[in-house]
């Protein structure tokens, strides 16, 4: 009796297992097909994109209608189906790709669209990447607090002993002042303290003067919390994509909002900040993310980015000269921007820093036919030496200051 029971249950389990796993396969196939073909123009429950939101579409249209539409919407429209023509008109006569799926793929896709998985909202995880131990100033502050406590404890012990001996007690501040006076009463100590103060004042003065006009580590807050790490690092977008004039002009180019919209017309929610920061682009350019259309007659606002790298006006610098002709990587001057959530100035950008690079960088002479004869002459003149930028006038004052 027991045996039969267990056999039955096993059979039951197997049946369940098979039905379940078959469903599972159908599900993944449909999902796969949706993700590799449909997702760039349609969402399920995420609102209108290029085409309509497909939530509940399998209830609205029958399977046959959908199959005809997906396989070749243009043929279907040509056949004169009223619903098909209405949709074609509604979406600005944008024809959908004709997919011609195999029957089983189509069934899997329709099954997936009928029962899409409930989207799990991704919880923004706050990564504690910055907690790489305590900063030196925190450690110093802790030491200071510890020392102060020690002074306090020792003073109170001293006072207790004095009460035992019936001597007058001192408050904490009195102790500190008296001890300080006693310390400075010795001329040797005055010399030591005086010397220390002198060194500190000199160092402070020197640093302040050397820091005038040097903005290294400048990291201002920008009007939009744009992360270069997400765009250039994680998603691998080339610097030139947004800073497209660096190749051909003096300035590297701050992308106007239409460049942001090349991606953000579709991506309305960001990795770190959700919709809040991307909404600022829409506010600037006048875009409605719900209907995915630009608002007509909108008064556009500039996005006032804060300039970080700024040479004084008496120094001339040209990006195209360095990027296109000199073939330098952006990172050589700007540091690893693709790893920065908030950009800061990495280099010194002082004259000495420019000059140093001009002294060390070799001129790239290959594939530059225009200057062949000039390059030959230079190779003759500086035979056996590295031909660096300074050898072709890279240190002339008038090159940068005029």
């Amino acid at each position: 009796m027991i045996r039969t029971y267990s056999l039955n249950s096993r059979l039951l389990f197997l049946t369940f297992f098979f039905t379940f796993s078959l469903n599972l396969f159908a599900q993944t196939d449909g999902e796969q097909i949706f993700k590799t073909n449909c997702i760039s123009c349609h969402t399920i429950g995420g609102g209108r994109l290029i085409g309509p939101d497909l939530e509940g579409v399998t209830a609205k249209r029958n399977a046959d209608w959908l199959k005809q539409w997906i396989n070749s919407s243009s043929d279907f429209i040509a056949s004169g189906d009223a619903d098909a023509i209405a949709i074609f008109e509604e979406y600005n006569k944008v024809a959908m790709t004709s997919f011609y799926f195999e029957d089983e793929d189509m069934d899997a896709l329709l099954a997936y669209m009928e029962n899409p998985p409930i989207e799990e909202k991704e919880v923004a995880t706050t990564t504690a990447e910055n907690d790489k131990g305590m900063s030196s100033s925190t450690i110093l502050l802790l030491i200071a607090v510890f020392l102060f406590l020690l002074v306090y404890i020792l003073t109170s012990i001293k006072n207790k002993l004095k009460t035992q001996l019936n001597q007058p007690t001192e408050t904490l501040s009195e102790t500190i002042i008296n001890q300080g006076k006693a310390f400075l009463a010795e001329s040797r100590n005055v010399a030591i303290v005086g010397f220390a103060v002198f060194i500190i004042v000199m160092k402070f003065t020197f640093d302040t003067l050397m820091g005038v006009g040097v903005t290294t580590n400048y990291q201002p807050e920008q009007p939009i919390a744009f992360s270069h790490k997400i765009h250039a690092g994680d998603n691998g977008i080339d610097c030139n994509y947004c800073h497209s004039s660096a190749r051909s002009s003096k300035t590297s180019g701050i992308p106007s909002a239409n460049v942001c919209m090349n991606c953000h017309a579709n991506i309305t929610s960001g990795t770190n900040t959700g919709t809040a920061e991307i909404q600022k682009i829409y506010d600037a350019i006048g875009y409605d993310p719900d209907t995915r259309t630009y608002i007509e007659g909108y008064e556009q606002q500039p996005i006032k980015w804060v300039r970080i790298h700024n040479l004084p006006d008496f120094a001339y610098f040209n990006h195209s000269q360095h990027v296109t002709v000199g073939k330098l990587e952006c990172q050589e001057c700007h540091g690893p921007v693709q790893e920065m959530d908030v950009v800061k100035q990495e280099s010194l950008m002082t004259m000495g820093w420019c000059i140093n690079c001009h002294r060390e960088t070799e001129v790239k002479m290959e594939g530059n036919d225009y200057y062949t004869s000039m390059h030959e002459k230079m190779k003759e003149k500086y035979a056996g030496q590295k031909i660096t930028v300074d050898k072709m006038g890279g240190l002339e004052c008038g090159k940068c200051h005029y």
Partner: protein
Amino acid sequence: MIKAILKIGFFVAVIFLAACSGDSNPGYEFMPNMYRSPSMETYGENNINGMNALTPVKGTVARGKLKTFNYDKTLEGYLNAGNMAVNPMENTDENLADGKSLYGMFCKHCHGKTGTGDGTMRHAIYSAVPHYNDEKTIRRSGTPMSELTSGHIFHAITYGLNAMGPHASQITEEERWKIVLYVQEELQHYGLE
């Protein structure tokens, strides 16, 4: 004992004060009126009409920006361009190399190194980027991706298509034709016989 502690405390306090420095402030400038001359900076503000970054005056053409591709941003324009537009770029090694490097800057993160949608973009939308070597599905052009003509591709770069945005503001016409050349020569038949 207390003396020694006071001594150490004094130095600690001094070093602590010296170590404080803010990064949100650019610091001092030596001669501000030489650093910032009255001439207008490229992306600066001015008190005449606000922004220095402006669109060209109506009816003018910037040097090197003469438009030779005169098809509209419509389905008709797309189909006409596909039928008629001819790529003026000759198929030379130099043009192909330029095209490849420009493709790397402006296309690769979505379309991928091999043009089969294997880009580095992580958002779900980019998992359905069409493959240039797709021979099966019929696109808006009436042809599969592998048979798109140079005019189709140029029109798509210029005005955008579906989820792709218009790239005319970032890439000049000449550069766009070089990209078209590279896509047609290297990617449309990638891995095909």
